[in-house]
């Protein structure tokens, strides 16, 4: 289990847990980010900027600030399974 910032790009990831406070979690839920959803890290911006995340389950893209991305714990999906 790693946080989203450390995850590799363009690889399917499963959300294991969303840490953080009430407000942040609710906001992520409203945008369709839940535990067990499959997401992909699309791109990273320069200078420790935000990350662009694509949610494959609900087919949406969201830009997340680095601080928030660090609160999303993911695991790499083993495609052989």
């Amino acid at each position, binding site marked *: 289990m790693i946080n989203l910032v450390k995850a590799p790009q363009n690889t399917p990831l499963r959300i294991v847990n969303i840490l953080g406070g009430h*407000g*942040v979690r*609710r906001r992520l839920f409203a945008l369709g980010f*839940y535990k067990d959803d499959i997401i992909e890290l699309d791109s990273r911006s320069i200078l420790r*900027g935000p990350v662009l995340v694509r*949610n494959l389950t609900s087919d*949406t893209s*969201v830009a997340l*600030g680095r601080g*928030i991305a660090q609160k999303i714990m993911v695991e790499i999906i083993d495609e052989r399974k």
Partner: protein
Amino acid sequence: MTKENNFPDVVFIGQPNCGKSTLFNVIAGLKAQTSNFPGTTVKHSHSKVNVEGKVLNIIDLPGTYSLNPSDPAEKVAFTHLFLEKPDLIINVVDASILGRSLELTLELIELEYPVVVALNMVDLAEKKGMEIDPKKLEMLLGVPVIFTIASHGRGVKELLDVVLHSLEKGLSVSHIKWSRDVEERIEEMENQLPEDFPVVANKRFTAICMIEANRLLFDKMLKDINPPLKISLDRVRHDLETMHNAPAYEVIAAERHHLALKIFEECTIVKRGKRTSWQERIDDVIMHPFLGYIILLAVFFGFFFIIFKIASPLEEFLLEPLNNLRLFLSQKLGTGVFFYLADGLLQGIGGGIAIVLPYFIPLIFLMSFLEDIGYLARAGFLMDTFMHKIGLHGKSVSPLILGFGCNVPAIVSTRILESRRDRIITSLLIPFIPCAARTTIILALVAFYLGPLWAMGFYMFNVLLVAVLGRVITFFFKTQSPGLILEIPSLKIPSLKNMMRKTYFQLRSFLKFAWPILVAGSIVLGLFQYLNLDQFINLILSPLVEKSLGLPRELGVTLVFGFLRKELSLIMMLQALGVSYQDLMTVISKEQLIVFTVFISFFVPCLSTVAILWKEIGKRIAFLSMVLNTGVAILFSLLARLIFRG
């Protein structure tokens, strides 16, 4: 707010970027009886429309992801739904992200108000390889579903037919059942509600809201008012939490999420096309960590360059007949009061047409292009890094960019920011963004007389100033910004019709509100000049205007009037100096031109901006903003004088 008549209220609600406002404008624009004001003074657009002899009150609410509001814009939608119970809800859904969008639909159905779903952008969904079965969706949701493509006006008639039919017949809507264990807990809570409890929509929805609410305030209130109910609530929450191993509000949200996905899967066949569509390929370039910034800069400068290239020849072309007319008038009317009045009238009307509109129209048009294509959110992503440096984050970028059009709606749009701190800082910075009026001044003075490169330099400086000011202001706010969570909508080919419609709405409000001020202001100045009152004002301001800034004393009066409307300063400048546009440089120097532009650009934007700041953020911030703008304007025009004196 009381209902002004007995016409049924039809509310448009949907998630951000679902094409809700486009649909609303198509319907309101087609058969509008009264105007709808573009987000300047009201929180939501209202319009009365006549559909086949039946009058409907249609209301466009700000986009909201859920009925659990987390930013002030969403709160507007929330408050409206409950305070003014609508007769029917049109839920606009972006078909291309159906799974996610259905979560709001499910919430709306829980209200058990009549709902009609407008499944919008079906063309986009088809391109993504999605095949949606409307009948199946209708059956699963239990409410009518209509396919629409708002940007082409498709499906609008069918939608209105169903709305009328539903209003006449009455549409019964009932919620969709969740997992049994969750339903049981909700029912338990529902049964505990006393008869006199302030129910929202219905008992079940109220019970769900109570379980979801985890705010200290609500819990404390309930504990004081009805301690046994608080105990039951705690027990229900506890049960849900132990069963699902997650906070109660998450259990409820997850129920909706899974139900929405299940419905989505049951009514949609997804034929995965090629993995990379053209949108993704373009996105790879424009959001590229390096190329993205080069493109951003190119877009920024291209934007102003195009406006200038269109506007300046047009301006010269339009000014010529105006000057001839003016010459003719002075020969006919001499120097009596009639000349001053007629000249003022001519300057006001002509200045509006020949100087302001050539810049205003292309600017608004290009702005709606950037907005519709989806570039603003991408700029937000790219700029987030830099915004962090000044203590804000990427979500503030979109209000700041909107400020280039007009500061007023830009300040209203700060409602998308969740934290009040970010709202205040962004709202204090917006008045420093050169709006269409100030862009007109910069392009018509600096670019026209000194060359486009000077104007570009001016913009660079302006943007830099906003960044530095942001850094200074955030220094006084100790609280942290909550961080960026911003949806990036898919790129869309903008519809020309929609862009024209937006431009038309803005143009109409300019002609209706701003132009009369320009004309009236010019006439008043004419009268002042005849009565020599202008000299009195100029004398009072001369320590600032003449002594400090080194400008011609006659310009004092134009600064005062510029407070009503920025373009007024430009038009009045010519009138006050008594020269035609082409001859301006014969009476003032290059240095004075720059000092004047700097002062005008950073000085308090206009009356409407101050008014909206007062209304949206508060009296203190409005005053602070005025002081800040005046201070910066004086400081930098003095500096400009020192630097350019040579």
